């Protein structure tokens, strides 16, 4: 049997391909199979697996979530489910509810702690400090250390006074 792609060499590799629920057998030579294999591998990446997580921890019913669209770029949550990528940076805010559990699953964390771009550095730093303090305060309350919580609250107030732009809109 000759290879179905090049039609020149002997077919030694037998692949089964499923496209649109149609199963198809392919008989290929080694070279064409290697190319085909590389193609398939590239087409199935991490983002495909990610799309499988898209319904994770959906507090909103999945059917309701898929219709949400980003007002900025028009990308919908169902697009994300299909390709595992977002449309623009605004999408993170628009799909926040759906993305939060996914990000937690991927990174085992729910916030960035690394580099801050210098351009926005000044105000962002303030916001991040405030967020960190709020987290600390919540922890203190949980462990019933109310004096500590009050101390942190005062510190936050002070920071907000110093840098009104950094007011953290929760």
């Amino acid at each position, binding site marked *: 049997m000759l290879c179905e792609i090049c039609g020149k060499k002997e077919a030694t590799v037998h692949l089964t391909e499923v496209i649109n629920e149609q199963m198809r057998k392919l008989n290929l030579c080694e*070279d064409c199979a290697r190319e085909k294999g*590389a193609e398939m*591998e*590239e087409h199935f990446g*991490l*983002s495909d697996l*990610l799309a499988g997580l898209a319904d994770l921890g959906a507090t909103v019913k999945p059917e309701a979530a898929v219709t949400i669209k980003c007002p900025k*770029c028009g*990308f919908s949550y169902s697009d994300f489910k299909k*390709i*595992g*990528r*977002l*449309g*623009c*940076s605004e999408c*993170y*805010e628009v799909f926040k509810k759906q*993305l939060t559990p*996914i*990000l937690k699953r*991927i*990174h*085992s*964390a*729910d*916030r*960035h*702690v*690394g*580099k*801050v*771009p*210098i*351009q*926005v550095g000044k105000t*962002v730093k303030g*916001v*991040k400090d405030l*967020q960190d303090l709020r987290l600390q305060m919540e922890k203190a309350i949980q462990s019933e250390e109310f004096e500590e919580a009050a101390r942190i609250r005062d510190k936050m107030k002070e920071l907000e006074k110093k840098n009104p732009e950094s007011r953290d809109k929760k």
Partner: protein
Amino acid sequence: MTLDDFLHQESEWLKGTGPRSNIVMSSRTRLARNLEGLPYSHWADKKQLETILDSVRGAMDSVSFLKGSMFFRMKDLSDIDKVFLVERHLMSPEHTRSGEYKALIVDPKEIVSIMVNEEDHLRIQVLQSGFNIKETWRIIDEIDTALSKKLSFAYSPKWGYLTACPTNVGTGLRGSIMLHLPALVFTAQIERVLGATAKLGLNIRGFYGEGTEASGNLFQISNQVSMGRTEDDIIDNLERIIDQIVSREDSSRNTLISKNKEALTDRIWRAYGTLKSAHIITSRETVALLSAIRLGVDLGVFKDLNREMVTELFISTQPAHLQKLSGKILTAEERDVKRADLIREKLK
């Protein structure tokens, strides 16, 4: 300088120098960055894609590491040229596809490259020879800071640098190290070592081929998580784990020499014999044999072969390199002949 000049120059990372370069082939970091206010490349329209290209091109000059760099539009390159750049590790296979608005910036030493309009607007990469991951981070951090004075990157205080795929959000950082682990493979320890590595949140890929079947005994290990840790933590963690693997490979090499010296030397010299005399050779066989030769060089078996030359052969025997060297398109069979010729010539 043009693309063809790369053909006759050795990239910085191929020099086979740097710490632990007997085991660590190369260290690489990449940062994913996107311009604020523009859709991700896959969702942007033609005008927006052009804007992204222009903005990045305009910001290049502000980065001292990019002095004298080349800017290639993918649409201006032939298919062979594109694969050639992939083979030199300067861009991803993904970047060769539908390239109307894709571009690549490369510095003349091939240390820094930036893919424009790949999955993210910018994918910055720094590549070095040997176990130098901290140094690659230092350089890329500097480049990123310089660029951010000209370009406004999409960033959220909560989630960090925003990327097209949520797997890269946060730092946008991926560090990866390419390791040559023949002794761990020969002594059948590799499964265990790689299994443990995966449990620590690192990603492992065979460099040629898949999983532990990797031919050439080359493995690429990288961090999986990009958010919730600082860049220094990510790099430090990667470095510590790799350091353990390197030590393990080192001690396995010593064990092999003390217990199986004849068998090992036999394997290395046979590989040399085949490469030196073959007239037809596939890339798969080449990579497997070069791995044995590289080990031989590391163990001092060969007097007149050096690591640089062997490492270079891993790259120059790949399909696009062979075709650029010949100056024409070759069939697979013609490449196997050309490859054998090239190797014999180098080993003469």
